[in-house]
């Protein structure tokens, strides 16, 4: 099925079955490999992208359901104010260890800050609990979100 989607502000056209998950379209059809495949059942958060600004697990999201909606991926998140702040804080605090889960972490954190500019710990728990990190960088993730929100090191 020929489809056109707005991804990171650009119109992208491709051919894919309507029930193909968005993640497969991004990685295998469009070659945008910044978004990662983790569990495939919406349980780890590695594949998180934004649909109209909302964080969604792209590994289970049928691409046919997206017409008229705008997709933001890790490749484009730095162009948003919240995304830029998150990326800077992530680098300042050296959050990343192996990095595999981090595109998903950054996407969830950026969506959190866009909706809740000054999140407390319960907001962070509510937004980030579904993003799993095998290296256990959770403490630095939490600190980086607070720094991105306040602009100063906590």
């Amino acid at each position, binding site marked *: 099925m020929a489809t056109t989607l707005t991804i990171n502000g650009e119109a992208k056209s491709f051919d894919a079955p309507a029930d193909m998950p968005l993640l497969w379209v991004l990685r295998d059809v469009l070659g945008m490999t910044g978004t990662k495949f983790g569990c495939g059942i919406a*349980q780890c958060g590695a594949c998180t992208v934004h649909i109209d600004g909302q964080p*969604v697990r792209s590994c*289970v999201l049928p691409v046919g359901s997206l017409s008229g909606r705008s997709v933001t991926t890790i490749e484009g998140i730095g162009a948003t104010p919240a995304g830029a702040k998150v990326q800077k804080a992530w680098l300042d605090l050296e959050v990343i260890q192996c990095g595999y889960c981090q595109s998903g972490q950054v996407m969830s954190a950026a969506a959190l800050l866009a909706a809740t500019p000054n999140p407390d710990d319960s907001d962070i728990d*509510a937004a980030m609990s579904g993003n799993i990190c095998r290296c256990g960088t959770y403490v630095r993730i939490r600190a980086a979100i607070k720094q991105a929100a306040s602009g100063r090191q906590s």
Partner: protein
Amino acid sequence: MRMLRILAGLAVIALIAAGIAVWIIRGPGPLAFAGGPMVALADFRGANPTGVPASLAKASAVERGEYLAAAADCMVCHTKPGEKEYAGGLGFKLPFGTLYSTNITPDKETGIGNYSDQDFLNAVQHGRRRDGAMLYPAMPYTSYTYLTDEDTLAIKAYLFSLPPVRASAPENTLGFPFNQRWAMWFWSTVFSPNTRYMPDTSKSPEWNRGAYLVEALAHCGECHTPRNIAFALDNRKKFAGAITAGWRAFNISSDKATGLGGWSDDDLISYLSIGHAKDRGTASGPMGEAVDHSLSKLAPEDIKAIVVFLRSVPAVASPDLPATTAPAAPASHREGPTADARGKIVFQQACVSCHGWSGASLVSSMATLTGSWAVNDPGATNVAQIVISGTKRHVPEDALSMPAFGASYSDEEIAAVANYVTARFGSKGSKLTARDIAELRKQTAQ
């Protein structure tokens, strides 16, 4: 002499009392509510309500049987997950032991390969096995008894067209007195109507087609009608809902608040054809299987006939259900119920990425919780079951599955998240305990 007379008198009174008790327990038949004059099929003037849709009228017996076997949903019970279709062996965990479904492939030794037409009719319509033993009513012959001979034998032709599979079902593990098959003769004599379908002349041909599909083939009442003390259907509360195999089959009577009375035709058609209707939830568990393997294969005119029939079933309220389902929950995690901290922790780890804080899924409308009876049931039976065993649907094509969490969360955690979900997305939160979850795990069919 006088003593004898008193004893004889007492015996007569006891017999009459027993007869009245049986009559009261037995109650009305499944179609008694319609009330119109019933005639033999041959004397009905409208279109024949039995058989297959017009598009299959000229098809072979095997093709007609394939449609009818799907409509009767033979496969789901006669197949063990992961094993060959129709080869039996699925266990039914009942309060008095486990029953195993039989192999109905045409294998001569372990299946039904030696069944004559009459043997097959006896089994399906009368619950009598080839060797004369009575079947347990887990095989819904009290419904299938309404099938015409022609339709029953078309199903046989279809089953005999399948490859024979050599597979013996495990022995049943029923305790005394339930292991005494001969006693089922008495049960059957009282509780099986033992009659072919008789059209109601006061109703339309479409209603009669719906009645035939619902009562003779789809056997909806076997799950959706409560049972009496003799474990037979209590049609005084026809379609009022019941717990079957650890899942709640909800009220499908025409009750406006807690049944189907408030559903539009489109809602019902959608739910029956694909197992989902907007703002009404998604079929899972046994109903998901019924849609995937049976109802989704029915012709559109048959689905419509089912809707016409369902609408005519008298309203019976479910007093434990709220009068209206809850609206969408707040978009923020901060608002809404806070009582169950543990439930919220599980929800934000495992559930929110698909179901959202509001209950409206960003991933698929099939994952939207808002409006479903499951989250509005203060018993939370189906919420807990879906968390334990997940849900895997085959229709529609882009249907999403939900992983099973039974192995990754403890009974305490599953109880907590079910209580949180019903409090957040339903009208009244449940109060499940770890013990309830352990019990539900036991009840689920394998």
